[in-house]
Structures are given as C-alpha cells and as structure tokens.
C-alpha cells in the first residue's frame, strides 16, 4: 500500500481530486519544468490551498492598514506585535478551528487553542491571555448544546492546563451557525523587544530539528481538499482526521521554546500548524531566502508504515521546527532533555533555494521554495451585489407591528436570549486569574484589562463581530465590528494599538460570499484606519457552509489597546443618586438588530450607519472621563440598545440599587430609543459629586450627550412613562438563561 500510494500516477482525475485546477496544474509543471509526482502534487495542493496560500483572500487583505509607529511586527510572521512601552511589546493573533470543532467539538476547540498558543510563543513571547469568540446554532437544539458544552470544555481544559488565563470573548447563538459552529481563539503574549524571534531558516549548513511530539496520521485531510476516492478505501478508514490535543506536552514545549529562544540556542523557530512539516519548513526557508532539505525517515513517528506523503502532511499537534547552528546543538539538546521532549535532527538548511525531501537519502520531492510559497495563484473576482441584500433591506416590518410590542416584555426576552444573557456558565469554566494579571476579567466590562508587569500600564483587549450586521450590510458590518471593539476598549480607558482578525465566511467561489468578503474587508480597513489600529495578524476561514447553507459572514475582530497608567482604570461601583450619562444621540435604528431577531424572529433592514468620526471622538471622551475617575464605569450601547445596556449597568451596581431611565418623546413609541442599536454610544455611571465636572467636560467636547437617568435605591429597573420591573427578576433571567438550559436539558451528539 505504501508503495502504491507513492507511485500513484498523476492523472487529471487525481489532480482534480486534490482541488487543483487545470490551469494551476499547468503552472506547477511550468515552475518545476516537469510533471510533479504524487507526493509533490499533495504538497502543492496544500500550499496552494486557501488555508495555507490565501489564494482568494490575499489580494483583498492588502487593503488593511498594517503599519504605524507602534507596529513591531506586521503580518507575515506567526503573529503580529505592537509596542506597549517600557521596552515591551505584545504579540497577538486570532485563529479559527471551525471545521475540526464541528466534527469533534472538544478536541477541535482544544487543538485550536493549542495552535494559537504556539503561534505566540514561537515568537519568543510568553502567552499571557486567551480570548474565545464562538458562534453556535440555537441552544434549544440538543446537538447544539452538545457542541457548545464540549467546545467550552475543550477551550477551558487546554488553556487551564497550560496556565494561560482565558480573560474574555463572545458568544452568539443563531440558527445561521447551526450546521457550522465557529470557534475562534485569540492569544496575547508579552515580550521584550530584543527577544522577538522570527521564523526563518537562515544560514546554509545549519541543522533543522523537530522538537516535541511524534508524528502520527492526524489531520491529514485538515488543510487540503483531498477527495477520499483517490486514496484506497482502507487508508482513508484507518486515517484519523481528528487531532487529539495534549496540553501537558504543549506546556513543556512552551517552556522549552521560550528557554531556547532566551538563551540563544536557535536561529529560527516555527510551529507546525496547518500542513505541518510542509508549510513550516517551506515558509521558514522562504523567509530566509534559503533552501531546505529534510529526510522524512528521521522524523519520529507514532505509527508504523507512514509514507513520506503522510509525514509531510500530518497535522499532529505540539510540534516545533527549530533551526540551529552546529555550535548551538548541545544547548538545544540540553533544554529538550530538561523538559523531557524529544528533539531530533531531520535536515539541513541549504543555499540552493530548493525544498528537498528525502526518504532514507532517496529524493522524494524537489521543488523551488518560491514555487510553494510565493507563486500561489491569486484570484481577484469581479462580482455584483447579491440580490438578497435589496430584499433584506426592503423587508422591515411595519412600524405598527413594532409599536405593538410590549417594551418591557421585549426587554425580558432580550435579557434571557442566550446571545445577550450572562456568559458566566462559560467563563467560570475558564481559569481567568492565573498569572495574576487580570484586573478586569470576563463579566464586569466589555473588555478585559490586564496589567503589564514590569510597566505601569495595562492592556485592554476585546473580541467583537456581529454576523447579522455583516449579512445585512457587509461593509457597514465589517466597520461596526471594529467600532464595537474600539468602544469596548474605551470603556476600560484603553486606546487602540492594533487589531487581529478572523474572517469566517462561506465558499468564496460563490459570488455572494465573495462580495460579502470583499465588502467586509473594506469596512474593516476603513474603520481600522479611523482608529489608528493597524491589522498586524489574522486568519481567513472560508467554506463555512453546511447543507443548511452558508453561515452569516462573520469577521471577528480582536483589538488590543493600552491604558498607560493602571491607576487610571475604572473602579466600578456606584450608589443611589449617581447619574447615568448617555454619550451619543438617542437611538432609532432597529434594522438588523436584536429586537427584530430575538423578539420577532426576523432579519431585516440595514445595519446601523457608521460614523467613524463620531466613533473616534466619542471614544476619546469616554476614555478621558474613565481615566480621570469622572465616570466609575462605562458600558457601550450594542446588542439590544440602551434598554439592555441600562439593565446590564444596573446588574453591575451594588445589590440594592436600581436605575431609572428617561426616554425622549417619540411618535411610534419608545422602541427606537430603548432598543435602537445606533453606533458611537455609551452609558456612563457618574457619581453625584462629579456630575458638574462631567457636564463641563462634555459641553466643551462638542459631543452629543444627555443625562439619561440615575441610580436609585429601590432595586427596580424603571423606564419613565413606560414601566418597570424588579431588578432581581430581570437579573435572574439574564443570569440563568444559559446555565438553566445547560443544566436541565440533555445534549445529543
């Protein structure tokens, strides 16, 4: 079988089964000056896949701003990095593990966390925090509960074991994700500038090592589109595509990697992620402008009888590729031994620009490095606006229908909708304190706040993205994801420094999906420019479709910001008599919003308009009020509008407190003001004695604002002239919506 596989003739059928187009094949022949053999074909199919090669997305991604004085490392490395002062930089990236999580939610999520951790510590940075951005179908579906429960457990178990706190994230439940959940994980690491390591295979004559776990047949289908029919049935059957995570080995690998980078025992380090040995070795060579030669027979295996093809394409977890000079080898081996990790020499850096693979000295592949890495086809497609958009925009419900909705019943419904309800059930399963940097963890604020030890500053970090907005309005939706992240940072006093993203879309070969992608990217790019937040890393995940259709186009944005002085952080609290100040205008925009989706069950209208100038100015003033201690806390107004924001603000106040909100007069009823999701808005808690200070500051700032209400002592949530509910009752719904479902309803695999 081994021989049969290797000698499989490369017929047009085999080429097509590898997802390679005829014109692409011709290009391969041209680059090689001959026909590829079967193994080489597999390598091309991986490296030229969207997953590794970004053939549909690269051209568009170049629209992102990626430079700025704070950028220490832009896109192109394992992760990006921005300066946070005092000689430190923060390294960060976000990545998806959607398909693996759909097949095996626990392992899929766990290995997703493992992968993104490696991207960060490969750069020499110690991971200090994780965030997870998740999308599932509706929680009433027992299979969705199964996926949700096990994804959360997988994220938690992996991060908890490695000892990196999961400090934030987001979760949306919507039927659009029923067949295809999204699991995006973001990791941040801290590093001194001079320790930053780049993944390059420099110095011909240097040796190449595999450090860490042995190689099995895991995930061989992972990154490519291999059609199983072309491989004999029994190979496919015996080939587990699910990767099993081993967080303990990851922890050892983390410590060993940081130690070897710090002690200067390596020239370059690269983790083996998608497409394993193939992409890690060719990319390291490409970055250094060298060649590389590897003998697969030397790679430690977990299973007997693996072919070169399998060794090259395996996605076994917890492995690193290390390049070291001969004089570094003893130190490298000593570190590996200290951490009980195998470290094996498998090849050498060459000066011939070739990616050569041997098996027991016999040549298996011989491909110019550039052909694999730089010659990936790039497609830019011209597509029309899909017709569904006009339909969605035109289908807003009648104002009468909205006017008939009982606003307080709607508020109850929104607070108990799992998307809006408290996520405590999730984040209590995540260690969010380890490493003792967590000033604000999940729960109290829209963004997490982490101290940067060794500096007086703190990092704010948030992930955001609203797929429904992007579906209704791709460009606005993209910009709104960035705007919401920036708002969340402003509420903890942090100024944006940089962005990472994970672009989850359907099949880009479909016109509508490509249109959504291109427009969302434009929206993101515009907003990032407005906030001075360059995109320094990211990830694209296409083909998120199931028999039920494509998911909502869902770019998630991970934004990192700086609060220069941790003493200026928001202190929280509040007491009766405090003012609630609304920054921004009163709401009116219900299109594409939560009221329609969660209460009426419809998706209609346009997403809220984006005013980037207002976003920037309002964020600035919120930061100033928070940092000066004028406001003790701030919440941005997002899903569910002012009403939901007010309720959530109330839940953050001491137990006996209530709130009272005044709404502007409006013809069609209070719905727009209560549930409108217009942007650039915040609700601030300002102690009574600082009210005048706030007023002065706001009046001189040319920012629309009003005193929208106050903190009361009667434990009720009241909307003047509309009605009220006991806080206790609303809070119970909000607190228990997810846990009740998860504790009393059964799952089904």
């Amino acid at each position: 079988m081994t021989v049969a596989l290797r000698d499989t003739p490369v017929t047009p059928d085999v080429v097509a089964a590898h997802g390679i187009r005829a014109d692409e094949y011709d290009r391969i022949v041209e680059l090689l000056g001959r026909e590829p053999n079967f193994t080489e074909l597999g390598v091309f199919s991986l490296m030229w896949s969207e997953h590794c090669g970004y053939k549909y997305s690269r051209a568009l991604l170049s629209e992102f701003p990626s430079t700025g004085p704070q950028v220490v490392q832009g896109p192109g490395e394992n992760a990006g990095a921005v300066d946070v002062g005092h000689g430190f930089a923060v390294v960060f990236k976000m990545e998806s593990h959607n398909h693996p999580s759909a097949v095996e939610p626990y392992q899929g999520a766990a290995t997703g966390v493992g992968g993104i951790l490696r991207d960060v510590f490969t750069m020499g940075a110690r991971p200090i925090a994780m965030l997870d951005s998740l999308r599932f179908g509706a929680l009433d579906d027992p299979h969705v509960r199964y996926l949700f429960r096990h994804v959360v457990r997988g994220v938690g178990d992996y991060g908890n074991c490695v000892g990196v706190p999961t400090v934030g994230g987001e979760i949306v439940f919507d039927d659009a994700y029923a067949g295809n959940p999204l699991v995006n994980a973001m990791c941040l690491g801290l590093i001194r500038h001079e320790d930053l390591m780049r993944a390059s295979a420099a110095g011909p004559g240097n040796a190449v090592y595999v450090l860490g776990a042995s190689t099995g047949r895991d995930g061989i289908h992972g990154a490519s589109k291999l059609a199983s029919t072309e491989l004999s049935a029994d190979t496919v059957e015996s080939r587990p595509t699910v990767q099993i995570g081993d967080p303990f080995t990851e922890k050892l690998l983390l410590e060993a990697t940081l130690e070897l980078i710090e002690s200067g025992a390596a020239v370059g380090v690269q983790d083996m992620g998608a497409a394993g040995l193939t992409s890690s070795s060719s990319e390291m060579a490409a970055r250094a402008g060298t060649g590389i030669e590897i003998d697969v027979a030397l790679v430690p295996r977990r299973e007997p009888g693996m072919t070169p093809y399998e060794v090259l394409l395996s996605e076994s977890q917890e492995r690193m590729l290390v390049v070291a000079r001969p004089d570094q080898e003893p130190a490298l081996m000593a570190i590996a031994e200290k951490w009980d990790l195998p470290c094996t020499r498998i090849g050498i850096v060459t000066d011939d620009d070739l990616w050569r693979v041997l098996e027991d000295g016999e040549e298996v592949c011989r491909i110019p490095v550039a052909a694999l890495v730089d010659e990936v086809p790039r497609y830019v497609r011209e597509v029309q606006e899909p017709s569904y958009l006009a339909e969605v925009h035109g289908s807003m419900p009648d104002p009468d229908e909205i006017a008939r909705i009982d606003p307080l019943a709607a508020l109850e419904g929104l607070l108990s909708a799992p998307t809006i309800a408290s996520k405590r059930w999730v984040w209590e399963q995540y260690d969010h304190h380890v490493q003792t940097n967590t000033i604000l963890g999940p729960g109290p604020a829209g963004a997490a706040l982490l101290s940067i030890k060794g500096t007086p500053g703190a990092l704010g970090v948030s992930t955001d993205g609203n797929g429904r907005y992007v579906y209704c309005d791709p460009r606005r939706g993209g910009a709104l994801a960035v705007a919401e992240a920036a708002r969340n940072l402003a509420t903890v006093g942090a100024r944006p420094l940089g962005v990472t993203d994970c672009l989850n879309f359907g099949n880009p070969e479909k016109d509508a999906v490509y249109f959504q992608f291109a427009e969302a990217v434009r929206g993101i790019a515009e907003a990032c420019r407005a906030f001075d937040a360059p995109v320094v890393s990211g990830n694209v995940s296409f083909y998120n479709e199931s028999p039920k259709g494509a998911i909502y186009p869902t770019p998630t944005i991970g934004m990192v910001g700086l609060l220069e002085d941790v003493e200026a952080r928001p202190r929280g609290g509040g007491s009766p008599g405090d003012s609630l100040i609304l920054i921004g205008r009163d709401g009116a925009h219900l299109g594409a919003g939560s009221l329609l989706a969660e209460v009426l069950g419809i998706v209609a209208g346009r997403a809220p308009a984006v005013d980037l100038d207002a976003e920037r100015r309002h964020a600035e003033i919120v930061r100033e009020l928070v940092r000066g201690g004028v406001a003790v806390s701030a919440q941005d107004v997002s899903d569910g509008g002012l009403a939901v924001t007010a309720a959530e603000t109330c839940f953050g106040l001491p137990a006996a407190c209530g709130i009272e909100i005044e709404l502007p007069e409006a013809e069609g009823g209070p719905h727009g003001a209560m549930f409108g999701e217009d942007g650039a808005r915040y609700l601030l808690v300002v102690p009574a004695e600082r009210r005048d200070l706030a007023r002065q500051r706001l009046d001189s700032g040319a920012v629309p604002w009003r005193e929208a209400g106050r903190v009361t002592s009667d434990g009720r949530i009241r909307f003047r002239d509309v009605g009220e509910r006991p806080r206790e009752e609303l809070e119970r719904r909000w607190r228990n919506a997810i846990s009740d479902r998860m504790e009393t309803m059964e799952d089904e695999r």
Partner: protein
Amino acid sequence: MTARVEVFVQLKDGMLDPQGKTLEHALEALGYSGVENVRVGKWITFAVEGGCREEIAGRVDEMCRRLLANTVIERFTYKLLEDGE
C-alpha cells in the same frame, strides 16, 4: 432479565493517547521497565433490567454509540453478565 453490564471505551488505535503516554513514562521512571503501549480508557458498569439478552445487548450497543463512547475518536466493547453469574 436483569444484567450487569460492563462497557470498555478506549481511544481508537493510532489516536494519540496523551494520558497513556505520560503514564508510560511515569511507570518507567518508577522503575517498572518493559511496560509498553499504555492506554487509559473508561470502564463503565451498571445494571440494566428488562427484555431478553439480545434485546439488552442491542440497547447497550445503542447506548454506547449515542452516549457512552464518542465514536468519532473512541471504540468500545461491552460485556453482559446475567445477575448471579
């Protein structure tokens, strides 16, 4: 009839078993040499009532597939013992 059931669940062959691997090293460090291929699985026991042996077997098989084992990554076997056996 009433049967005592024992279900055995293990990761499929070829799947990495991190617990097994770590335990193997630990046993070796403790001085137990010659120990190989350690796998850590689950052993689930229960009593079940109703139907004949074949019916119970069928039900247990289904229970394993639906809940007790994760057949994406695990394989299972089971054993029925009639009460008193």
